[in-house]
């Protein structure tokens, strides 16, 4: 019991240290703040729709305001104006953050789990298992995950869940597994693995207690990076009207560009800029956090 308490305390101390180090890096703090902001946006939309915004005017899909001519410039009623179809841009941007969150979380989760598992397996077993796994990864590396998801989503309408799943599958099997395998090989060459073997630790013990925990920081880092690709790919699929979610940042840009190119309507600049900025900021925030984490994990990179 005492030992357990001691262990818990030690873990909390080390976690506190990591948290302080992460918060000490300005890039990570900015990234976290942005992520928090998008989290708030996803929560705020249903609340705002219930309380302040009447559904007929502010619905992100079919809302229309008869008082202004679309595309309307920003006003007090429409903070970011309306798009070419007369819908409130602010409401659309907020509503779209939900599908982006689903894509990001699912893609990151699937990528992380698959990449860590396969990388650890390859590094631990070596031999023919490693041979097969790394050849499969090499093959998947030839195919960029974004392109493949786009091919699939052109034929099958993918929900955000499925989109994240397919993206994570390709990404985790390919690039992710390769990155984590090479880190795994480094870990397996460390003296503490030898020590664990000598002191009688079995294969399962080494795998779950030593190898995988050592891989976790890098796999978190890689998950964060894969979010960037997933979000941009999802935006692009939505831009070509190929996802189930009509309410998404890519679709907003698509409507604006099409209205201008095909029908010669005025360019709804607020909608275009706001949607693209939201997409870039959301993807960028994960990038910022990952580069902050990288600085913490690799002290050589901290600017001295």
């Amino acid at each position: 019991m005492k030992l357990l308490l001691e262990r818990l305390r030690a873990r909390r101390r080390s976690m506190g240290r990591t948290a302080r180090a992460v918060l000490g890096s300005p890039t990570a703090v900015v990234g976290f703040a942005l992520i928090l902001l998008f989290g708030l946006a996803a929560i705020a939309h249903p609340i705002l729709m219930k309380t302040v915004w009447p559904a007929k005017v502010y619905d992100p899909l079919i809302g229309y305001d008869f008082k202004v001519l679309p595309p309307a410039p920003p006003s007090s009623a429409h903070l970011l104006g309306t798009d070419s179809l007369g819908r409130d841009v602010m409401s659309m941007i907020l509503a779209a953050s939900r599908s982006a969150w689903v894509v990001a979380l699912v893609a990151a989760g699937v990528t992380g789990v698959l990449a860590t598992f396969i990388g650890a397996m390859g590094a631990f077993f070596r031999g023919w298992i490693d041979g097969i796994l790394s050849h499969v990864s090499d093959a998947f590396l030839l195919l960029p995950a974004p392109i493949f998801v786009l091919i699939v989503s052109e034929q099958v309408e993918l929900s955000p869940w499925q989109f994240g799943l397919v993206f994570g599958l390709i990404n985790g099997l390919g690039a992710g597994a390769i990155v984590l395998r090479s880190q795994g090989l480094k870990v397996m060459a460390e003296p503490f693995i030898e020590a664990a073997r000598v002191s009688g630790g079995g294969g399962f013990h080494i795998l779950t207690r030593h190898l995988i925990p050592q891989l976790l920081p890098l796999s978190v880092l890689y998950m964060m990076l894969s979010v960037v690709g997933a979000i941009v790919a999802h935006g692009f699929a939505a831009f070509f009207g190929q996802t189930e979610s009509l309410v998404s940042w890519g679709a907003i840009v698509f409507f604006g560009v099409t209205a201008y190119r095909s029908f010669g309507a005025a360019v709804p600049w607020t909608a275009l800029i706001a949607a693209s900025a939201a997409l870039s900021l959301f993807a960028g925030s994960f990038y910022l956090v990952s580069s902050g984490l990288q600085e913490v994990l690799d002290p050589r990179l901290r600017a001295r």
Partner: protein
Amino acid sequence: MGKYLLRRTVSGIVALVVFTAGMFVLIEVMIPGDYFSPFRLGMTGAEVEALRVQYGLDRPLPIRYWLWLQNFVFHGFGQSTTGFVRHGPLIGSLTATLLVFVVGLGLAYLFGSWLGRIAGWTRGARGRTLTFLAITTYTIFPPFLGFLLFYFFNSRLADLRHRLVGASVDWKTMDQTSVMTRMNITIIVATIVVLALGALGARVLGKRRLLSPLGKVIAIGVVSFGWWTYKGIFAYTVDIWLEAAIPIFAFAILSYGDFLLVMRTSILGVMNDDYVTTARAKGMPSRVVRDRHAGRNAVFPVLGRLIVSIPYLLSGLVIIEQSVGWGGIGTTLFDAVTAQDLPLVMDVLVLIGAFTLVLRLVFEVAQAILDPRVWRPA
């Protein structure tokens, strides 16, 4: 080194075969319909069924893949179900992609690594601004970037084309693909010639280097345009350059951030190494230490990153092509997918895979030349 390169080539070919198998299975599993689905409106069910049996589509998946592989190896790209694209145009689109890819990547690499050296070397506001800029362009939404460039520059470029070469260019007598192929070959040959002559000249004259990177770029440009003028296709190339300007710049803007960020990290990693301190202590100017001492050693991670991120650069290019309407491999791919032309989709994917492999091999040769640790046994 020959052995190392042979090993890499063989493992690349194995990867390509595994890749085609994976794509074949995934396309069969994830995309509904088969080669005859596009015709189902004009035929009765029995006719379609008969065709499917005739073409072996009723057989199990592994056998179908084996047949596909056999036919691909012995007969090449085969026929498309929609019939409008054959491998002539397919190669043409690859040429168009190659032009944008080579020039855009060159620009992105030069600017990215230069700005990355500055961003890593300088502390404070300038370094942070550069990093922030890189992250912004790294995550920019490609269709929006394409739209912005299109909106602001397209009509101006069209005007410029009209004024500069409007009278002297007649595409009816000249094949656009063949001009682009010649441009690609010229650029690649000119690059090799300039680099080789530069190295040779530097050795003969006993200098560290003859030309700065910018000087090399200018030399490559002068040599290429001189050759085109000599061959009498100067006006045609200008026309193509002005048309390709938007995709090239969009691609360069989208990918330079990657190089900048990796270069910055890499510089931060080496800037406290002993040889950098020594160079500073000798009283070298800061810029020389940055570019000649730290920068030279920091280039390896950038090259390594380049090898890993070829697929991502390519996917960025595919997305750019599709959003600015450049008739390259990406546009062909999406046309094929929309038309449910599955044989063509497979062909394009194989081309993308092979293209990636060749590029990877080229960069691996460069890496092996620059850093013998890669292939020498420890």
